């Protein structure tokens, strides 16, 4: 099947730095696809290149198999949910949602606006102006404004970043179920690895304008191909060249048996986090490690001599790097 969106060798250079450095990826129809990376990694620029708001220096963009690189933003069948929402302040919710439909000469604008209002649960707010909406409502209005056009791909630029912590978690769940219902391909840009892991069918991890790894959430978390990916997706203890996640790092007073590696260590502190303890220890070689210890295990005092151990099968290995 032809991917709904495909990038081939896409690059964007600015004076002094390369924002996007020859990235290629292909997004299957109906996917919830995330571009994950730290700020300045080029993920937002990539999104703007796809939307047509920036012109690439090289490379091609294909939508449903056809090159759209030469098209103006208003000619591309993709729509963007902007990070600051960019709602039109002089239009009501209804006016904002109907904005794009008026260019499509659709004859049932009213009905489609009502359906979309219902979809994002903004019924009763259609006559409000953006300034009269809460943060969550603005977010929904921005989503609705793009969704109503039924784009081939919906581009979302950190749409949850402006919300507070609690609302963000709630909207995250809504976003996922919304995507399933409307059956539109989502390309979701975020720097929040938890967001990317919990929402996506597929994640492309970006760093310094390049894609480091593409894979399903479990794959990029459990089998990161580079140290960068390992470190960006979660905490890692780096011990003699091997990477071990805190939840697979164990602590015991006796030397464990089996296919494990063991290092003597001294406990430095133990922090209770509710569902577990984070025990910080320092190996005899001076390397600090963090172990996530279940609540029902023994508690450890600082200064105590222990053994830090992990299964060799839990080690993260990197075939592509020499660092």
């Amino acid at each position, binding site marked *: 099947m032809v991917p709904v969106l495909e990038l081939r060798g896409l690059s964007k250079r600015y004076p002094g730095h390369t924002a996007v450095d020859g990235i290629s990826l292909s997004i299957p129809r109906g996917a919830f696809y995330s571009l994950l990376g730290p700020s300045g990694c080029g993920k937002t620029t990539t999104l703007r290149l796809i*939307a*047509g*708001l920036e012109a690439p220096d090289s490379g091609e963009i294909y939508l449903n198999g056809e090159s759209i690189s030469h098209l*103006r*933003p*208003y000619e591309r069948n993709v*729509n*963007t949910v*902007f990070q*600051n929402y*960019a*709602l*039109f*302040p*002089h239009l009501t919710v209804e006016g904002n949602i109907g*904005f*794009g439909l008026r*260019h*499509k000469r659709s004859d049932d604008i009213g009905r489609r606006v009502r359906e979309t209002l219902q979809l994002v649960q903004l019924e009763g707010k259609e006559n409000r102006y953006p300034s009269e909406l809460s943060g969550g409502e603005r977010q929904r209005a921005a989503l609705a*404004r*793009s969704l109503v*056009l039924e784009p081939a791909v919906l581009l979302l630029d950190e749409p949850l970043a402006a919300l507070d912590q609690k609302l963000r978690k709630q909207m995250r769940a809504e976003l996922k179920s919304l995507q399933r219902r409307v059956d539109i391909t989502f390309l979701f840009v975020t720097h929040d690895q938890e967001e990317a892991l919990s929402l996506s069918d597929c994640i492309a991890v970006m760093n310094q304008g390049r894609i480091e790894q593409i894979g399903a959430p479990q794959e990029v978390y459990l089998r990161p191909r580079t140290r960068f990916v390992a470190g960006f997706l979660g905490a890692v203890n780096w011990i003699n060249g091997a990477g071990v996640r805190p939840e697979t790092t164990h602590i015991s007073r006796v030397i464990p048996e089996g296919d494990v590696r063991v290092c003597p260590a001294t406990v430095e502190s133990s922090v209770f986090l509710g569902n577990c303890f984070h025990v910080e220890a320092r190996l005899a070689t001076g390397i600090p490690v963090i172990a996530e210890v279940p609540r029902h295990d023994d508690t450890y005092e600082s200064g105590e001599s222990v053994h830090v151990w992990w299964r060799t099968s839990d080690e993260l290995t990197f075939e592509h790097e020499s660092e």
Partner: protein
Amino acid sequence: MTRLRLYFLTPAALSLTLLFLAPLAIVLVYSLMNRGVWGGVELPYTVENYRRLLDPIYLGILLRSFLMAGAATLACLLLGFPLALFIARAGKRQSLYLHLVIVPFWTSFLVRTYAWMFLLRDTGLVNTALLALGFIREPLPLLYNSFAVLVGLVYGYLPFMVLPLYATLAKIDRSLLEAAADLGARPWQSLRRVIVPLAAPGIRAGAVLVFIPCLGAYLTPDLLGGSKTIMIGNVIQNQFTSSRDWPFGSAVSLAVMAVVMALLLGWLRREKERLL
């Protein structure tokens, strides 16, 4: 604190009272008196001056003044909007261009109006150039008509349109225009559906700032216009000079002021209702 604030207000309050309210009161009283033989005013009191305002001649001039000021305002808007938009998008050059817009203010308005006479008259630059290039056989009648007055007004008051327009256009968030394009709006649709509505406060302010002085203009029609392009400002001016009819001049002034205020208040109220 409150008292200190009052002290600071005193100079403004005093000058407004002395230089605005008191003269206005004098004009009001004059308008209700009879003309003196050599100018000035004489008792008894009368409302005859206001009755004379209803003379079709003066109503005609008033109407033409409104049309002229309206045309000048519209022309300033049509010329000023693209210019203001250009300046608002000029990045680092914005302040340079803004200064260029203001540069004409460095010279007296009178001198600049004379300059237009030299440009537009039969032996002026425009006609001489067109004749020399063979585009015309006889000089075009560019001066001493409504066209010349309109040119003079638009030239004189364009900056008053450009500055408030620039102020609102520069504030428009670029991401709104990106959103409009993203939602399928072509550039001119973005202009019509996003930029113009968001620039509305600037358009209103500019329109008021241009329309009111144009309505009362007397220098421009006096120098660039002919006998048939007299405006209400010239009527008022004549009453205080050659006609020596101060009471009637006062009545005309107050009538124009009243009409403008009524229009402005009605308009502001409608705007307020629209916003609520």
